[in-house]
């Protein structure tokens, strides 16, 4: 059940991998769409935490082009509904995430990313 809300917070945590380690790149994904309760207050509160470019790029890569390239100043209902869908309703069920820097691959199975590191990768 990895969704873009957590993907957008997640950087690589392998040893000495500190720059250019975000966002992890999805590969060979299987998606599932599941409806979630729409909560505009939550979304507005969450906006400052979002890395906008990473979110838009990743959403587009997964086939959703509803978000504008620039984070809008006016948060109208249509925008919030699109944001809601992108952050909370697209579930990546299978596939993997690759670190753009060290190329570590985090496999995703059953919706659960495997974040375990090998001994030599622990910081």
């Amino acid at each position, binding site marked *: 059940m990895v969704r873009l809300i*957590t993907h957008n917070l997640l950087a690589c945590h392998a040893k000495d991998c500190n720059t250019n380690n975000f966002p992890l790149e999805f590969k060979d994904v299987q998606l599932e769409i599941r409806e979630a309760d729409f909560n505009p207050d939550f979304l507005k509160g969450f906006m400052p935490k979002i890395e906008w470019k990473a979110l838009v790029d990743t959403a587009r890569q997964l086939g959703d082009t509803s978000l504008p390239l620039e984070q809008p100043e006016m948060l109208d209902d249509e925008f919030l509904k699109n944001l809601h869908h992108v952050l909370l309703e697209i579930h990546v069920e299978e596939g993997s995430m690759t670190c753009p820097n060290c190329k570590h691959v985090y496999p995703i199975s059953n919706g659960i990313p495997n974040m375990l590191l090998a*001994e030599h990768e622990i910081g």
Partner: protein
Amino acid sequence: MSLSLSFTGHHDPQPLPLTLHSALFTLHSLSSVLALLVCAAIVLVLVLVLVARYYGDAEAKKYTSNTRNQQIQADMTYRALELLNLPPGQPAFLLDIGCGSGLSGEILDEEGYLWAGVDVAPSMLEVALEREVEGDLFLQDIGQGFGFRPGSFDGAISISVIQWLLNAETSHPTSSPPHRLQRFFTTLHSSLRSPSRAVLQFYPSSDEQVQMIAGVARKAGFGGGVVVDYPNSRRARKVFLCLFVGGGGGGGSGSGQGGGKGEEELPKGLEGEEEESARVRFERRRERERAKAKGGKRKAVKDRDWILKKKEEDEDEDEDERGRGRGRW
């Protein structure tokens, strides 16, 4: 709580020495002894893997379906939420550290929080999936640290987990308990918003352990400290690390006088023998704060009607002896 002890999957290889002894008596050729040794080793490994897997899955199910256990975990989760002291009526994104099968996360769902959970046991996460908890789940060893960006979470809870960080996993330096604790607390600290809190209930086996863990947390930058509920009751005694980032200021009343910029005061532990239901206390406080903050502007995170409706359903189910009765069990 003894149940929590069953997740390491240590199983002593009792039968092996016997098999080997009889083998040594009956076989004379060195090579067949060697061959037998290898076979025995392979069989043993297979058996251990199977047992561990069966045990893992069976234990995960047992742990999760035990009503008494559900109630204990739920109570501690409500108490942790109380100590988190989140601003009332404001949505929050939380981290559940060692979320297991979702007993703690399910309370977060009910209270309308969004959350992500991490756990190192695949069998526990599988049960969480079956139970359809709403948080995003990660297979992760917290002793290896987190990779979440700075300020990702508005708070973190951990129920009955971090005592596990005191066991060394292998002889490698990165798996020594001090190293794992330091990695855990440092990366947790940076993944929390400032100001915010992390509340971690755990089962220490001595006061020295508590002091050691609190010391590592402090070095990692946390304020706050240790809160002990019912310190004199053998049964009800509970230890919480109540850690502050950036003063730990929440919006709630209830605990701490601080307000403003300074460091919040450490909440007091509960006293006496009486165990009021943590859920009742938490929700009463929330109602009070909602009433105080009324004016229509503040809305509950989930649709309030939905929560109320769900409560009613729950109350209906409470008629049977299940105590907490939350539909999905």
